[in-house]
C-alpha cells in the first residue's frame, strides 16, 4: 500500500511494519493506517491510559485527520513534528537509560489496559529537548492475553544490552549501535560476559539464558510457542512482572565516567572574564538577529553554555559534542531542569553519523538532517584543522553545509598564537600548518559568504565572526 499524493513523501525509515507508514507533507508528519491498524487506533484512542500518556507528553502528539490527505489508506493520523530526529547511537548513557525506562513505563501502563507494543526498539523513542517521547504510535496493539511481549528481543538488542555494555564493562555503546541497525545479538553479548562477569546484574537471565533459549528453540515456530505458553498459563501479570523486573534492573545500572579531559573544560579553559562576557554578548546578538530561529546547532558544545544562550531565542538547539561523558553531564543537568529545547548529542564532527539501514537511508546521516538556521562553531575550528588535520577550507565548507539557505554561522577562530592553539600545534611536526592563519581564514569566509559582524576578543588571540550565506 503506498501513497503518492503530490508533495507527500514516504519516510524512508518507516516501512518495517506494513500495516502503517509515516509520510511527510511539508512540515506535517502523517501516518497512514491500513484497516487493521485503523481498528487498533480506534481502540487506542478510546483508552484512558493513552489519553494520560498524551496529556503528560510521553507519547508524541497525535490526532486523526481526514483520510483524503493520504489516498490508499483507511485512516490517517497527524503527529507532532520532532524538531530534530536523532539516533540511539548519538545519545549518551543517561539518555539511552531514560529512553529505555520510558519504553517500559509505557508498556507497564498499557498492559493493564489491554494493550501491548509490537516491538521494543530504541528507535521508537525521540526527544523534545532533554525529554524523551515515544513516537511509534503504530506499535500499539490490543493485547492477546497469555502472550509474552513481542518486543522483548528488540528491547534487549537495542536498549538493554548497550546499557549493560556500558554499565558493566565501561565500553561506549554508541559504536555498537551505530554499526548494527538491529542492535547487539545475545550471541555476541554472551562472548563478552564470560567467567565472573556471567553473574553481573541482568546477565545470567537476559543474556545467557536468553541466548541459550534462542539457540535451543531456533527451529520452533513462534506461533506454536505462543499457543503453548498461553495454554501453560502465561498471564498478563507475568508480563507485567517482567516489565517491572526490567525497570528495576535498568534503574540499578549506572555509569559515570571518572573524568575526561573535557568535563572540566569550562573551569580550566583559558578564557578571561572580559573575553567570556564579549563572547556571550556576540553569540546572543547573532542568534537574536536570526529572528526566532527554529533550529540552532551548537557544534563542539562542551557544557552547553552557548547552547543555553541560544535557547533563549531559538525554538530548538542541538548541542553536538564528541565526548560522551561531557554530553551525559549536560543531559543530566538539562533533564533535571525539565528542559524541552536543548538536545545534547554525542558525535565526532570529523566522523559524523553516516546514513544507515536499508539503502543507507533508513537512518538518515547527520549531514542530511543538519539544516539549521544558525550554526555555532565556537573554539572548535582549531580542533578540526589542527587536531584532525582537516584543511581549513574544508572545515568552513562543512560548517556552512549545516545551514539552510540564508542561515547564519557564528564561528570563533583561535589564532595560532593562542595558548590553546599552541598546545595543539606542539603535538604536530613543526610548520605543517602554514595555512592556519587568521588572514587565510578570513579569505576563505569572504569567498563563500558575507561577513556581517566580527569582533576580536579582548585577550587578542581569538576572533568571532557572524556570517550569512546566500541561497
Amino acid at each position, binding site marked *: 500500500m503506498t501513497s503518492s499524493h503530490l508533495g507527500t513523501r514516504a519516510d524512508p525509515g518507516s516501512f518495517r511494519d506494513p500495516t502503517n507508514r509515516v509520510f511527510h507533507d511539508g512540515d506535517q508528519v502523517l501516518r497512514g493506517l491500513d484497516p487493521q491498524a485503523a481498528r487498533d487506533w480506534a481502540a487506542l484512542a478510546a483508552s484512558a491510559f493513552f489519553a494520560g500518556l498524551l496529556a503528560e507528553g510521553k507519547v508524541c502528539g497525535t490526532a486523526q485527520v481526514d483520510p483524503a490527505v493520504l489516498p490508499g489508506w483507511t485512516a490517517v493520523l497527524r503527529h507532532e513534528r520532532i524538531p530534530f530526529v536523532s539516533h540511539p547511537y548519538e545519545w549518551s548513557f543517561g539518555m539511552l537509560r531514560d529512553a529505555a525506562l520510558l519504553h517500559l513505563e509505557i508498556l507497564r501502563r498499557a498492559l493493564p489496559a489491554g494493550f501491548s507494543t509490537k516491538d521494543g526498539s530504541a528507535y521508537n523513542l525521540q526527544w523534545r529537548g532533554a525529554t524523551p517521547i515515544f513516537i511509534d504510535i503504530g506499535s500499539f496493539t490490543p493485547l492477546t492475553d497469555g502472550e509474552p511481549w513481542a518486543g522483548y528481543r528488540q528491547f534487549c538488542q537495542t536498549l538493554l544490552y548497550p546499557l549493560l555494555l556500558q554499565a558493566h564493562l565501561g565500553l561506549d555503546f554508541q559504536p555498537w549501535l551505530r554499526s548494527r541497525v538491529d542492535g547487539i545479538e545475545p550471541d555476541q553479548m554472551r562472548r563478552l560476559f564470560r567467567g565472573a562477569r556471567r553473574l553481573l546484574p541482568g546477565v545470567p537471565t537476559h543474556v545467557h539464558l536468553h541466548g541459550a533459549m*534462542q539457540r535451543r528453540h531456533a527451529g520452533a515456530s513462534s506461533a506454536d*510457542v505462543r499457543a503453548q505458553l498461553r495454554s501453560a498459563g502465561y498471564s498478563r501479570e507475568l508480563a507485567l512482572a517482567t516489565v517491572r523486573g526490567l525497570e528495576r534492573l535498568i534503574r540499578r545500572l549506572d555509569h559515570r565516567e571518572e573524568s575526561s579531559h573535557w568535563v572540566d573544560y569550562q573551569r580550566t579553559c583559558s578564557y578571561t572574564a572580559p573575553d567570556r562576557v564579549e563572547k556571550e554578548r556576540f553569540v546572543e546578538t547573532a542568534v537574536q538577529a536570526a529572528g526566532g530561529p527554529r533550529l540552532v546547532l551548537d557544534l563542539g558544545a562542551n557544557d552547553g553554555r552557548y547552547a543555553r544562550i541560544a535557547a533563549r531565542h531559538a525554538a530548538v538547539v542541538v548541542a553536538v559534542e564528541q565526548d560522551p561523558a561531557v554530553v551525559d553531564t549536560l543531559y543530566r543537568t538539562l533533564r533535571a531542569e525539565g528542559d524541552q529545547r536543548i538536545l545534547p548529542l554525542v558525535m565526532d564532527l570529523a566522523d559524523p553519523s553516516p546514513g544507515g539501514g536499508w539503502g543507507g537511508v533508513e537512518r538518515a546521516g547527520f549531514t542530511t538532517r543538519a539544516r539549521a538556521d544558525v550554526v555555532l562553531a565556537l573554539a572548535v575550528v582549531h580542533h578540526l584543522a589542527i587536531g584532525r588535520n582537516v584543511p581549513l577550507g574544508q572545515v568552513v565548507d562543512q560548517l556552512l553545509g549545516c545551514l539552510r539557505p540564508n542561515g547564519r554561522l557564528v564561528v570563533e577562530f583561535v589564532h595560532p598564537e593562542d595558548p590553546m592553539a599552541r598546545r595543539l600545534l606542539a603535538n604536530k611536526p613543526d610548520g605543517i600548518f602554514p595555512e592556519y592563519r587568521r588572514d587565510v581564514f578570513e579569505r576563505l569566509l569572504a569567498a563563500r559568504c558575507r561577513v556581517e559582524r566580527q569582533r576580536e576578543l579582548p585577550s587578542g588571540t581569538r576572533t568571532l565572526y557572524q556570517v550569512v550565506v546566500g541561497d
Partner: protein
Amino acid sequence: MHLAYLDAGSGSLIVQAVVGGVAGAAVAAKLYWRRLVDRFRRQPTDRG
C-alpha cells in the same frame, strides 16, 4: 542469527516465562513437561 522484525523469536518468548519469578518458572516447567509428553506420545506413531 537474524530474526525477522515483528517476529518475537521463540526463545525470546519462552525466556520471558523463565525470568518471571516463581509463577513464571511454573509456566515454563508446564510448557516443557507438555512438550516432553507430546514427544513420547508422538514417537511410537512416528515409527509405525
